[in-house]
């Protein structure tokens, strides 16, 4: 039992509490401390990644209570991957926010860190109810962040977002209650042992509970028909917040991966692969819906917000097929798309800041300042997002397509992903050519010149797609191992039998 597992939770928690109590301190001090917290969190998650890459499961039982009776944290490859993904994303979004986006609200940094706290608990927890608590922690911070900056335009999408998520939480609790009433446990490893034993009338209760749980995760992941809240909410949020939110839908995807391969996996008897046959087609429809939305977007941020929906569809389709290759490809795409989409949100904000009253609307306007730099950033982001060679989006999509070669659904997956990528490309080309090429006479007063912090952080997030390509070998090996680990949950169940020794960590 190693105490390192609590680091990604304790660091943002302590940092966030400090931020709450120093709300009136000078902004430079608050920024420094917040940045130190984010950097420390990244360091700790990289340490955990190194620890997890030996393929073992590590367990942290709070109060040394033997699972399934206590609350446990479980670290495996998937959890470590999600932690690193989040902390890298958070670091760059945080640096971007220091460019002046954090000034409207004294508690911005506190909320930002609490959001990271919620995300990290969700990735590390090994307990279904604790997953609910983590969702609530990250949601209540996200409500605050979404409203950050104020303004009438944010109230309505914010209200929709809050009400929908509250209904989602209610459904989550009902499904937790249904599963508990039959199995008598909420520890994920114990559930994986208990659920195959369920039979008779009780089977239907667990099945209903499991499917309701899928509805909740689909709402978080923005799977159709539960995706229409997303574009408005994301397009109205402040840029660093929208960038951080790029990982929020991935929490839903993570939960689906965790629950439906561990608890309702191949070994779950009558409930094996619950809901996955439906999910494949829903994912393809989600992908198509995202592409249609992107084509119809009238401003850049809405376009990028629909890209989030596209990436959820692309992610869940191979996951629903359930092959090891498919999961590995999806995890590779997860890394690529989260960073790219977040980078595009930041670039869209920079574009908007250089175009005066035209903001990020896809209309002709006077030439913007720094257009060469911005157009290169936009092009790199768009190429990575649409999936053109030589950037990471292309490799990820090739891996996804390859993984379905032997399956019956190959035709539908290939056609939807390829046609979808083509139309995504059209959407980006249209936006890019209007924004950067078609200019009208006149000039924009340069009130907000690009500063080093915002350029570097937006450039770095977009440029991570190049890093992923350069490190494709090791990342691919890691995702392959993660997928194998996910498909063989036997070792996860063994954490139940890990002996707890008091006072001997």
């Amino acid at each position, binding site marked *: 039992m190693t105490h390192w597992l609590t680091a990604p939770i304790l660091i943002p928690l302590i940092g966030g509490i400090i931020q709450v109590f120093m709300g009136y301190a000078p902004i430079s001090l608050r920024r420094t401390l917040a940045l130190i917290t984010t950097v420390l969190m990244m360091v700790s998650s990289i340490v955990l990644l190194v620890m997890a890459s030996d393929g073992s499961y590590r367990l942290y039982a709070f109060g040394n209570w033997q699972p399934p009776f206590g609350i446990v944290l479980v670290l495996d490859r998937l959890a470590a991957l999600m932690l690193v993904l989040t902390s890298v994303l958070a670091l760059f979004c945080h640096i971007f926010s220091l460019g002046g986006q954090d000034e409207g609200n004294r508690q911005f940094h506190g909320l930002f860190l609490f959001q990271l706290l919620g995300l990290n608990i969700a990735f590390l927890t090994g307990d279904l*109810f604790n997953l609910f*608590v983590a969702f*609530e922690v990250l949601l*209540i911070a996200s*409500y605050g962040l979404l*409203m950050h900056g104020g303004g*009438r335009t944010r*109230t*309505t999408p*914010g*209200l*929709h977002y*809050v*009400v929908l998520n*509250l*209904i989602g*939480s*209610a459904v989550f*609790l*009902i499904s*937790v*209650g*249904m599963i*508990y*009433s039959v199995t*008598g446990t*909420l520890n994920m490893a114990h559930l994986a042992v208990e659920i195959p034993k369920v039979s008779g009338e009780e089977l239907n209760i667990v099945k209903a509970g499991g499917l309701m749980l899928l509805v909740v995760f689909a709402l978080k992941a923005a799977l159709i028909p539960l995706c229409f809240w997303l574009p408005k909410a994301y397009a109205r949020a402040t840029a660093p917040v929208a960038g951080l939110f790029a990982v929020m839908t991935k929490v839903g995807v993570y939960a689906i991966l965790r629950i439906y391969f561990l608890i309702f996996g191949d070994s779950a008897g009558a409930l094996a692969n619950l809901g996955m046959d439906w999910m494949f087609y829903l994912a393809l429809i989600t992908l198509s819906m995202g592409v249609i939305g992107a084509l119809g977007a009238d401003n850049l941020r809405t376009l990028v917000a629909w890209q989030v929906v596209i990436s959820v569809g692309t992610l869940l389709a191979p996951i629903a097929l359930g092959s090891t290759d498919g999961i590995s490809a999806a995890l590779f795409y997860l890394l690529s798309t989260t960073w790219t989409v977040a980078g595009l949100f930041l670039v869209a904000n920079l574009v908007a800041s250089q175009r005066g009253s035209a903001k990020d609307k896809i209309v002709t306007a006077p030439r913007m300042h720094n257009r060469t730099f911005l157009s290169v950033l936009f092009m790199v982001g768009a190429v990575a997002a649409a999936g053109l060679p030589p950037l990471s989006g292309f490799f990820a999509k090739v891996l996804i397509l390859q993984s379905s070669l032997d399956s019956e659904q190959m035709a539908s997956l290939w056609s939807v992903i390829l046609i979808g990528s083509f139309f995504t490309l059209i959407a980006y080309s249209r936006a890019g050519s209007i924004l950067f090429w078609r200019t009208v006479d006149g000039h924009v007063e340069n009130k907000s010149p690009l500063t080093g912090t915002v350029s570097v952080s937006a450039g770095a997030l977009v440029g991570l797609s190049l890093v992923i390509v350069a490190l494709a070998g090791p990342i691919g090996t890691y995702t392959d191992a993660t997928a194998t680990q996910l498909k063989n949950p036997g070792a996860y169940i063994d954490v139940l039998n890990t002996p707890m020794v008091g006072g001997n960590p």
Partner: protein
Amino acid sequence: MELAFALIIGALTASGVYLILRARTFPVVVGLTLLSYGVNLFLFSSGRLATGGQPILGSTEAYSDPLPQALVLTAIVIGFAMTAFVVVLSLRSLADHEDDHVDGERNVRSTDTHQEKQEGQR
């Protein structure tokens, strides 16, 4: 007891869902509250209903499961925080849009009067 319990959960949930569908912020907030009461009662019942049972082994003959009680307690605390937030947000929405529709759209009559007011000021 089981029948009464089930009827209460059903009534709370049905009223909650009905109120949420009203698309006005105040009914939506009340609906969310009722829904969360229904959910909390349901969660409580997931550990089986027992009269006079204590959640400590060996203290009485009847034993009641302590875990759902802990879960409900957590859910209630979270529910209160969320309700407080949604109330404040609805008030903000009302102030911003001068209308309590969840879409923030003014109905036709109030738009007219609002425009007349603005024109009158000019």
